[in-house]
């Protein structure tokens, strides 16, 4: 470009004031495009994913146990077979770890009914089953609370009328949802005692309105995923056959 040409251009541009004449949006079109199977699979991407997928499948599908039936969290009123299985698994798998670290035993377990994300289906049970039941990365925490707070915990269960899974707690309500019996490990609740209650980090942080864990004496984070308590339980069992029992019931 010759110099004169360049000058001319500058003059030309300032004359027209081109850039001040800002670009304007004249039309907008919006749409949501579905990713359907009519779209081609990108071969390179597919090949890149494959080894990751194969590795996971192999690990997930190795059979650990057998489930004698199909257990859903909607089967049962105030306690369910699948919820009982999970709460009991948290107790049996997490308690030895807690005891070895603190010298105490877990007194009871509670977590939220909503955390159970699928049914435990009849047939082979694998790691995949545990991922379906508990896809979240929730971990076990044990909280030391006073007997008076156990009363609030029980009151929460009483008023929520939901089959929130529990272990080592026995709670019987009458027709008016009043407490007829409340025991931990077969003993009456002592208001002055400290109880070690295991739950998920989600519940502890106030999830599903379970606010009875604060304030507390201490919190022990076990860094043990709830899903892994299930996997460890599956490994120990041949046949899984949980039942709806009388741990949390209403006498009608």
């Amino acid at each position, binding site marked *: 470009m010759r110099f004169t040409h360049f000058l001319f251009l500058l003059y030309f541009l300032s004359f027209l004031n081109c850039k001040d004449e800002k670009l304007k*949006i004249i039309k907008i079109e*919006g749409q949501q495009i579905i990713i359907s199977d009519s*779209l081609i699979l990108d071969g390179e991407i597919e090949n890149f994913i494959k080894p990751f997928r194969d590795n996971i499948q192999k690990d997930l599908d190795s059979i650990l146990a057998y489930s004698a039936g199909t257990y859903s969290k909607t089967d049962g009123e105030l306690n369910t077979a699948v919820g009982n299985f999970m709460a009991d698994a948290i107790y049996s798998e997490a308690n030895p770890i807690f005891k070895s670290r603190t010298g105490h035993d877990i007194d009871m377990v509670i977590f939220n009914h909503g955390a159970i994300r699928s049914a435990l289906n009849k047939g082979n049970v694998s790691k995949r089953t545990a991922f379906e039941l508990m896809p979240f990365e929730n971990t076990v925490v044990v909280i030391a609370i006073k007997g008076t707070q156990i009363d609030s915990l029980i009151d929460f269960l009483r008023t929520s009328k939901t089959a929130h899974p529990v272990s080592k707690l026995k709670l019987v309500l009458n027709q008016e949802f009043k407490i007829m019996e409340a025991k931990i490990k077969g003993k009456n609740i002592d208001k002055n005692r400290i109880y070690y209650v295991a739950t998920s980090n989600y519940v502890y942080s106030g999830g599903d309105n379970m606010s009875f864990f604060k304030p507390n004496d201490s919190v022990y984070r076990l860094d043990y995923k709830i899903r892994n308590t299930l996997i460890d339980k599956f490994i120990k069992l041949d046949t899984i056959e949980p039942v709806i029992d009388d741990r949390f019931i209403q006498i009608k």
Partner: protein
Amino acid sequence: MKRRDFIQQASAGTALVTLGSLGLQSFTSLNNTTKITILHTNDVHSHIDTFEEGRNANKGGVARRASLIDSIRKENPNTLLLDAGDIFQGTPYFNYYGGELEFKLMSKLKYDAATIGNHDFDNGIDGLFAQLPHAKFQFISANYDFSNTIMDTQTKPYQVFQKNGIKIGVFGLGIELNGLVAPNMFKETKYLNPLEISQDMSRILKTEEKCDLIICLSHLGYNYRNSNKISDLSLAKATKDIDLIIGGHTHTFLPKPTIVKNSDNKNVLVNQVGCYGIYLGKIDFYFDSDKNKSANGTSIIV
């Protein structure tokens, strides 16, 4: 004048000189309409494979999304690809590989930027940081202050992209983490007020960066009924100069983008595509010079 702007204008001028015409008419008529395509996903939650069963059977999947994006880019190279957060958590891919594959695939799909969702802290802020080397795209967050954390300097409040001479400013917003994510996971990440930050960001992008298009990439959530909690809809109403809010978090499947009037009584588009990579959002912006603007303003076809 910035060099790039000069080149843009000089080439337009050169064309004119060749034609030997100096009339205003011929200048504007030479300024062809430019189309900018914004593609977006949100809350993909580690859904890498196509759904095999359930109500979403045969939908989703990164390999199919890749071919779709490819064909859109071939049709219009002036395309940006954005994600509004919650990349992590939802399938065993995350549990086994911690987000490595998600980031690697997004890099292969040439994502330009992403903001951070609450679930992206699911392996803690350290878990997010550990996967950053696999991400060849920019993380954008204007209202998370990471300065006391390991993520310090790893994100930008906004990024300006240039496509065919058009400046596109994108800023990111995240949701309040307290109550949603355990404090030991997000550590000393500070949450700043999204409304105040948006006002700052839109001013910077409009007046300092002189952007032609301003996009907010948000993980605040589409709308909260009976609540003062800030959402994409309330943010759109309370701010100005934002053209498009791309949302996430609430997994809202909108049949079409929502049009909202902002504080200047101008239109803002709010869009979200549900979750799990079942849909790809596509918004096309057509630019022209002021002179070519039709009398009835911007037409929005959704």
